[in-house]
């Protein structure tokens, strides 16, 4: 299944957000992705963040800082985003396994520079309404708009990661090829 990448963004302004915070281990006993849905970011340690709030419920994009998704290899972290229709994460950098898991699921883990993330976060913080973020994969561009202001950022994506997203994930890609 191909996914669309964009929508209201939630800003998680902290580095080193780990997979235990994204989905605590006690929920790893579930054997379906759908069952994870209510527990998204339940243990996130971040001032002002409410895991039950409207901002998270409406979010289709997550914006964060360095080393996002560090810790456990659990694909439950991308899955809990997936079942909440968050198919895009934009951050300064990622832990390797989380980043690969996102692309393996046919989702996006986009890297932007610190300066671009600063601009994006500032834009989100100054708006009273939604920060809307749209990803143009072919053009490799992120377009953010809020309060009638628009900013665009270009990003790099490896041809392999792009191929995974276009194939719908690694299982589809590998199955056709190996």
């Amino acid at each position: 299944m191909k996914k669309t990448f964009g929508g209201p963004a939630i800003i998680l302004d902290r580095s080193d957000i780990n997979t235990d915070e994204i989905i605590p281990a006690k929920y790893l006993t579930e054997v379906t992705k759908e069952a994870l849905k209510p527990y998204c970011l339940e243990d996130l340690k971040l001032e002002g963040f409410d895991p039950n709030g409207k901002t998270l419920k409406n979010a289709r994009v997550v914006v964060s800082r360095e080393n996002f998704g560090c810790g456990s290899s659990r694909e439950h972290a991308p899955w809990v985003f997936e079942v909440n229709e968050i198919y895009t994460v934009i951050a300064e950098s990622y832990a390797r396994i989380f980043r690969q898991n996102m692309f393996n699921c046919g989702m996006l883990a986009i890297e932007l520079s610190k300066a671009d993330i600063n601009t994006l976060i500032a834009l989100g913080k100054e708006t009273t309404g939604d920060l809307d973020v749209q990803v143009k994969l072919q053009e490799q561009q992120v377009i953010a708009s809020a309060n009638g202001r628009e900013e665009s950022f270009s990003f790099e994506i490896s041809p392999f990661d792009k191929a995974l997203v276009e194939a719908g994930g690694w299982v589809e890609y590998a199955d056709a090829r190996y």
Partner: protein
Amino acid sequence: MGQTTAEKIFAAHLRDEPFPGTKVLDLDRVLCHEITTPVAIADLESRGKDRVYDNTKIKAVIDHVTPSKDSKTALQAKMLRDWARRHEIKDFFDIGHNGVCHALFPEKGYIRPGFTAIMGDSHTCTHGAFGAFAAGVGTTDLEVGILKGVCAFREPKSIRINLTGSLAKGVYAKDVILYVIGQLGVNGATDRVIEFHGPVVESMSMDARMTLCNMAIEAGGTSGICQPDMVTVDYLWPFIESEFVSKQAALEEYSRWCADSDADYDKILDFDVSELVPHVTYGYKPDCVKPIDEMVGTKIDQVYIGTCTNGRIEDLRQAAEVLKGRKIAVSLRGIVSPATPKIFQEALSEGLIQIFMDAGFCVTNPTCGACLGMSNGVLAEGEACASTSNRNFNGRMGKGGMVHLMSPSTAAATAITGVITDARAL
């Protein structure tokens, strides 16, 4: 230009390079446990592809929550068990024979120098202690591994860490790796392999090398790697005896995986560990480490000795040496979980279990359990645990709990006094 160990392993296992920089490797081992594998199994079934690429290269264990604690964990165990039977996976370990994956699989001789291994578990980097490339992956990578026997990686550059000098008495591999992570930071080795070198590593046992490599992921590393040598050969000898005419012949064969002296590294770091003291974490990231004297006196509610980091026989010996003839503080709970049945039996026959029980410890069966807040020692809100595990994330051992990572020796000393204590001062 010479090659690093990882580069040699990548070259020998390259199946495909679909794009420059993306390397699809053939896998020697696909390791499975009951938390991350069932979703892969279910997905393969739903795709009509319930097959395995090679049932002799796939190894499986129920280890995270065992015996099952509720209906959900029982279902996960059942899914793995049924799948292993269906595909005649001979090396499947269930109750009575199961233990923590990263202690059990090495102990069975499954990991050899030059191997590639993946598992749906971030601490798979442990197996690099044998001179292998071993990486934690997600369920989708695991699923493709099970079906096709391949996994894709960006070829990682390596960071070479030279550990020189010699460790003082009462200072262990755990203290070394905590210190190194403190120096590198939690993303200091992201997309990198950490290659450990130097006389300190050479004089370490396989148990200690596994402790080192186990925590490579806590600096973001893809795999930790030690150089195969006679210590590696001695450990593996019962399993490889029929393959080689002598240990020397095995050593010669395995040495080809050692990094070349002119290999190209992302970074080379030298640490003289002669003055190193025991280290302990504070806060919620594994790079928040302090020398023990800055942490002494911190109140602790539970001591947990075990896990894939420090649940091996040498770890239990270190702890028992401190505990012998002593009692744990009444204010505190002590839990010890030998990482495998073999370790448990060795601990029994060496009298270590008696020492733990006399001191007032609860001895549990081998399981990952409390390390990730699953079972057998979950913390209450506001409690602090002195743990020999590898992660101190917020909520890791229970919502609202604090975890201080340390060596078995420091954990044992802490158990006696009820506050973080330097074992060397007891």
